[in-house]
């Protein structure tokens, strides 16, 4: 009891102190950013429309723009005249390690905030909420997960979808053959070449893959969402001040309406590389998240 009381008092004291600008560099990450006047941003290569390369190999996307908002906030808080942003591509498999070992300071892409990952890293306020669904060829007769029994199904290695579909296969004895591709691009290639009948993934990413497809009208996104997931920006654990600063910058963007403008740009307007419109209206969950920014995980 005493220890808890002490910890609580300490935390309160700490947060009180941190509002004073003179003490704002207690955080190791902020100190590093201030000392080197640079920050390393983790981004994805093919998570359309969150974080990906356009046809000029520039990193663009919804999450990327929000990450730049956070960088602006950091720059203002540290009173830096100039901040050098270094971009570092990460994959599903190495992103956690790269955050932990200090290579990357913040990663905003399509990373789900869940309790298992919270043991290793911290997450900012949620920037997106998705449901896991299926993509299939139009007319292939795939409407929901039940249609997949006995078929080859592809998903991306290291994602929540992979976990869910393997579990579903085991629990319901569906005799599916699950293929784990190394990234979303390769998973879609597996679907496109007919190796798999359906591709299970976060709905927004599926729409993103359709945007890249040779013929977008060939593909549909279907099925009952198997889970809801909150994407957050990944940060180093045990650096509450850095998190607080990132959270505050994101919350400001969300409550001021900036985030909704960024959303409209990426989800309701034509986007690179093919100028396709994803036409994903702002969901109720997203509206709530914008209204009351929070870092709650769904699982």
């Amino acid at each position, binding site marked *: 009891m005493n220890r808890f009381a002490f910890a609580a008092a300490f935390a309160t004291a700490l947060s009180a102190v941190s509002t004073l600008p003179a003490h704002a560099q207690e955080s190791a990450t902020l100190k590093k950013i201030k000392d080197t006047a640079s920050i390393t941003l983790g981004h994805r290569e093919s998570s359309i429309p969150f974080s990906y390369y356009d046809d000029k190999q520039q990193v663009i996307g919804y999450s990327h723009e929000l990450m730049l908002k956070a960088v602006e906030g950091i720059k203002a808080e540290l009173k830096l005249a100039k901040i050098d942003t270094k971009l570092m591509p990460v994959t*599903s*498999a190495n992103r*956690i*390690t790269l955050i*932990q*070992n*200090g290579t990357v300071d913040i990663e905003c892409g399509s990373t789900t905030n869940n309790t*298992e*990952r919270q*043991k*290793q*890293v911290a997450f900012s306020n949620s920037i997106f909420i998705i449901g896991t669904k299926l993509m299939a060829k139009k007319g292939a007769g795939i409407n929901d997960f039940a249609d997949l029994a006995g078929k*080859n199904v592809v998903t991306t*290695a*290291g*994602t929540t979808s*992979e*976990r869910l579909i*393997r*579990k579903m*296969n*085991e*629990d319901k004895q569906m005799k599916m*053959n*699950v*293929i*784990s*591709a*190394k990234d979303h691009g390769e998973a879609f*290639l597996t679907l496109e*070449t*007919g*190796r*798999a009948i359906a591709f299970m993934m976060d709905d927004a990413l599926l729409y993103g893959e359709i945007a890249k497809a040779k013929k977008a009208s060939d593909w549909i996104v279907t099925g009952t969402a198997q889970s809801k997931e909150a994407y957050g920006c990944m940060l*180093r*654990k*045990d650096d509450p001040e850095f998190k607080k600063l990132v959270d505050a910058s994101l919350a400001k963007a969300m409550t001021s309406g900036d985030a909704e403008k960024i959303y409209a740009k990426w989800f309701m307007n034509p986007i690179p590389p093919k100028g396709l419109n994803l036409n994903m209206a702002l969901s109720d969950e997203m509206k709530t998240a914008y209204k009351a920014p929070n870092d709650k995980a769904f699982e």
Partner: protein
Amino acid sequence: MGYQWNWGVFLSPSASGDDTYLGWMFAGFKMTIALSLTAWVLALMLGALVGVLRTVPNKTLAGLATAYVEMFRNVPLLVQLFIWYFVLPELLPTSIGDAYKQSHPVMQQFLASMICLGLFTSARVAEQVRAGINSLPKGQKNAGLALGFTLPQTYRHVMLPMAFRLVVPPLTSEFLNIFKNSAVCSTIGLLELAAQGRQLVDYTAQPYESFIAVTLSYVLINVTVMTLMHKFERRIAVPGYIGGK
């Protein structure tokens, strides 16, 4: 840097609920062994054949063998794997290609991996075999022919028994390489040792335990192979030559 070590992770039930994570690692271990051994058998057979052909007097055969070696030796393993797995089925007639692609994915991945690793390594084995044959004194071949052996008989009874014994030490390192190169096959989704290690990272967020276990498994495989091959080398060594007493 705030890492939470947890070695108990291997004994916890896996995400699909039917096994422990240790079971996953073991499944990957078995896959790596099965893939490497079958690919090695393929590499030895093809490599021996191509290596011999590179040394025969017939210019056409020697030329074809050289082309084979240069092709498989000079294209990166990863590129070859993608060609076998992604490109080749598209070149088959549509009906056969589609039927193949709808078959069990692990079978497809294993087949592409085995052929790819086997052919890639066979080019390297061929070079060792050729070097072994060329290292023999010219007099051996001439003596065989002078005794009335045909060229194939000279190879069969005089040159190859010597050449194969001479190249066992360099072949050992190719044998070790095939186990290490098999990790490349995780890129097409084959769940071998490296892929299971990566899965463990994805599912448990315990990268260090997982990578350490994978590293130790590869070391274990290769130390075992090395020990066995050393014993084998000693048994078949030719007195007076490298490795012989």
